[in-house]
């Protein structure tokens, strides 16, 4: 079966009270992932996935997170009972390692370009802006000549496509993550008439990113003297909140059609 835009028109408004079964509604996160995949696929990014229940090597060690790093503390990470060394992944970065490992095993050297949308976990109390389970999208680009300037260009393009009709500015600020060096925080600003007032002309913190730390490449079996690249990780829930003006992140897992049916 092949669907085209023409045959399927989504109604975002309310359904009619008629006898016919109207089309169901897509979860906003699924719509966002669908759209992100489309934007990134066009510029050569493959969609990669990996396990949510992960070993500490792929979730921490291989990503250059030292054994005694505070992020590995009990209160931040869900550890699996009676399975030492197993956690619920705290980010989608585990798939960076798994993807590179599997490519190298198949004898496929870089260039690599992937995005990794998926669910991640943090052991924290939930409120309007925090959830213990949420969605992230990782990006990874490895090659011989990939630069921080490419990171800026790639993200600018993504946000331009996502917020159509707005002019998008990207700004980097220094930051620190064990898996990237240099590391940056990425801010975005939307300018233009079509931008909802709440977002217009304001710098918004979007994600952490940076140039992949040589140890990460090495741990995944990629030669860091030959290859380099960038990685980023953004929160999809937050992006959805901004995109549609959603006021409570807990709605994402509420399974409430009063929410879902608006999409």
């Amino acid at each position: 079966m092949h669907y085209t835009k023409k045959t399927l028109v989504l109604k975002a408004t309310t359904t009619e009270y008629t006898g016919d079964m109207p089309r169901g509604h897509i979860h906003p996160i699924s719509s966002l992932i669908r759209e992100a995949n489309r934007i990134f696929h066009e510029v050569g990014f493959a969609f990669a996935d990996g396990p949510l229940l992960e070993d500490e090597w792929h979730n921490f060690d291989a990503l250059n997170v030292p054994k005694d790093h505070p992020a590995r503390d009990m209160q931040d990470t869900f550890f699996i009972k009676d399975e030492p060394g197993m956690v619920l992944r705290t980010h989608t970065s585990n798939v960076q390692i798994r993807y590179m490992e599997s490519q190298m095993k198949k004898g496929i050297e870089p260039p690599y370009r992937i995005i990794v949308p998926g669910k991640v976990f943090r052991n924290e109390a939930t409120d309007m802006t925090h959830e213990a389970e949420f969605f992230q999208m990782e990006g990874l680009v490895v090659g011989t000549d990939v630069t921080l300037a490419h990171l800026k260009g790639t993200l600018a393009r993504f946000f331009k496509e996502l917020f159509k009709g707005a002019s998008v500015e990207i700004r980097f600020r220094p930051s620190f993550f064990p898996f990237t060096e240099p590391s940056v925080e990425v801010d975005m600003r939307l300018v233009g008439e079509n931008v909802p007032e709440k977002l217009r002309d304001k710098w918004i913190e979007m994600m952490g990113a940076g140039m992949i730390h040589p140890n990460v490449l090495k741990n995944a079996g990629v030669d860091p003297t030959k290859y380099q690249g960038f990685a980023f990780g953004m929160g999809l829930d937050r992006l959805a909140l901004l995109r549609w003006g959603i006021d409570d992140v807990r709605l994402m897992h509420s399974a409430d059609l009063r929410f879902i049916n608006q999409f």
Partner: protein
Amino acid sequence: MKISRNWLQTFFDAPLPDAAILGDALTFHVFEIDGIENIGGDDVLDVKITANRGHDCLCHFGIAKELSAILNIPLKKYPHTMPIDELQKRKTTAVSVLIEDPVLCPRYIAGYIKDVKVGPSPDWLKKSLEAIGQRSINNVVDATNYVMFNIGQPLHAFDAGKLTAQAGNYAINIRRAREGEKIIALDEKEYVLSNSMLAIVDVNGAHSQGGEAIGIAGVKGGMPAGITEATTDIIIESANFNGASVRKTAQALKLRTDASTRFEQVISPELAGYGMRAVVELIQKLAGGELVGFVDEYPVPQEGRTVAVSLSRINAVLGTKFGATNVTDVFQHLGLPFSQEGEVFTVTPPFERLDLIIPEDLIEEVGRIIGYDKIPDIELPAPSRPPAVNPNFYAAEKIREELMSQGYSEIFTSVFRDTGERSVQNKIDSDKPYLRNNLQPALAEAWMSNSLWKDLLGIKTVKIFEIGPIWKDGQEVIVVGTAEGERISNMKGSETLKTSEEPLKVNVPVDSYDNLPLSSATRYQSFSKYPYIVRDIAMWTPSGTKADDVLTLIKQNAGALLARCEKFDEFTKGDKTSYAFRLIFQSFERTLTDIEVNAIMEKMTVILKEKGFEIR
């Protein structure tokens, strides 16, 4: 960390710019700022020091160094160049120090001062500490805190008079605590130590076996040797403790202090020398006293190292076209000694810059000091091969589309349940620690709750699905689950719940993704959390009356509480048409009562009757 602008000014001759400019300089070149506050005429910046710079930036000097580099304002003093040969020249045998494990305590310096006069601190010192949220205690304790917030070395002062001397000499031991060893700390609370913790011990102290603990290493001093108004002789500790060990101790005791925060980040043992030198100088200035001398146990001095990077490598990583002078400017302004050979720069990091290890660390220094706004945005070149289609995602998208076309809406539910095969061991809210081994219970719950507001949603039946992982038979499997109602025959309007679940079927990969529709929603409208009330109204109308006109009439007269109104029935008999409408009332502020809705409906009835409709 709280950073005072007045305090920063002590490092510069030239007047510093406004706090807002300092804040921006830090934000775009090194650290985020959580806020700027004016406290007693001083501007105090709340600076978020990143984990890689806890080595050198949890102090005013660290921030001053950064500002000097970013704003290109020279520093007037550089505390780490003050002479510390005194530590060797003025050795004393009146105090002895024994480090049991140099891994846990790489360095311990004790400084012994006699005849100090403990009293209130001068105003400048009180003000400095109060600006950054610290309480002034007395001149000796304040001096130790001032030096810590100034250059980053935690310090502690013991009352020597409360220690036990043997033949006129004191002995301090840094050893693992005994299991169950107790200490009353300066916060007057008792802490029970364990063998994984490090204690500072008065060897000759009360508990003859192994001495008396007078401090929890790197965390907090003990009450037994605390400084009071009556103190005259003091022993100052300027030491270095293992970061991971201090972190675990502070965590286990739930006792995080300014000292433990700094040791946790790992600081250079070299700093202890400068810390001791600075604090003795300050104490003698504030409280007088006679310096007896120092003991410096430093079994394995920190080794120097060099890091090299080439100009072409810097540009190849950043995507820039910087020249050699751009790079030398950065290193000079940051106070990083370097040599240059051709296009290769070799930096010898100062002892406190423990973060500079690999070439990429230097690339970061160049990028951030020049400014990331100088990085151009360049799109990636066209891909060399089209990206593969992910078979799992393709299959999920296909089934998602199929189910939506059949009227199912997509939900996500939590992976945590109260039963399952595997569980997490440390969930904050301990109910539902299991990972679901089945989607259906959560789907059933969602179906039930959504069925309560079917009328509000304007749907006849709830049809939902979820695509997501379950953990079953030791495997993580992606499954597709659905829930919907099934009509019960003979019982009008009643439904029973039907759920299904099957693994996501993944077929042979295809070449490209289908072009599936996105949500066309523009803005989300929040919904009322209060219950709603349903009223149906049916009427006979003269032929030719349009349903839409009646609907408009109802909407115009029902008031702001009408959340939804739809026609649900229509039939014609002779020259009359019967219309039936369903009205949903709901408030954003409260639970509505039948009485107020009935009043609205009565008013509505009157209006419809006036139009000549016959209410059925």
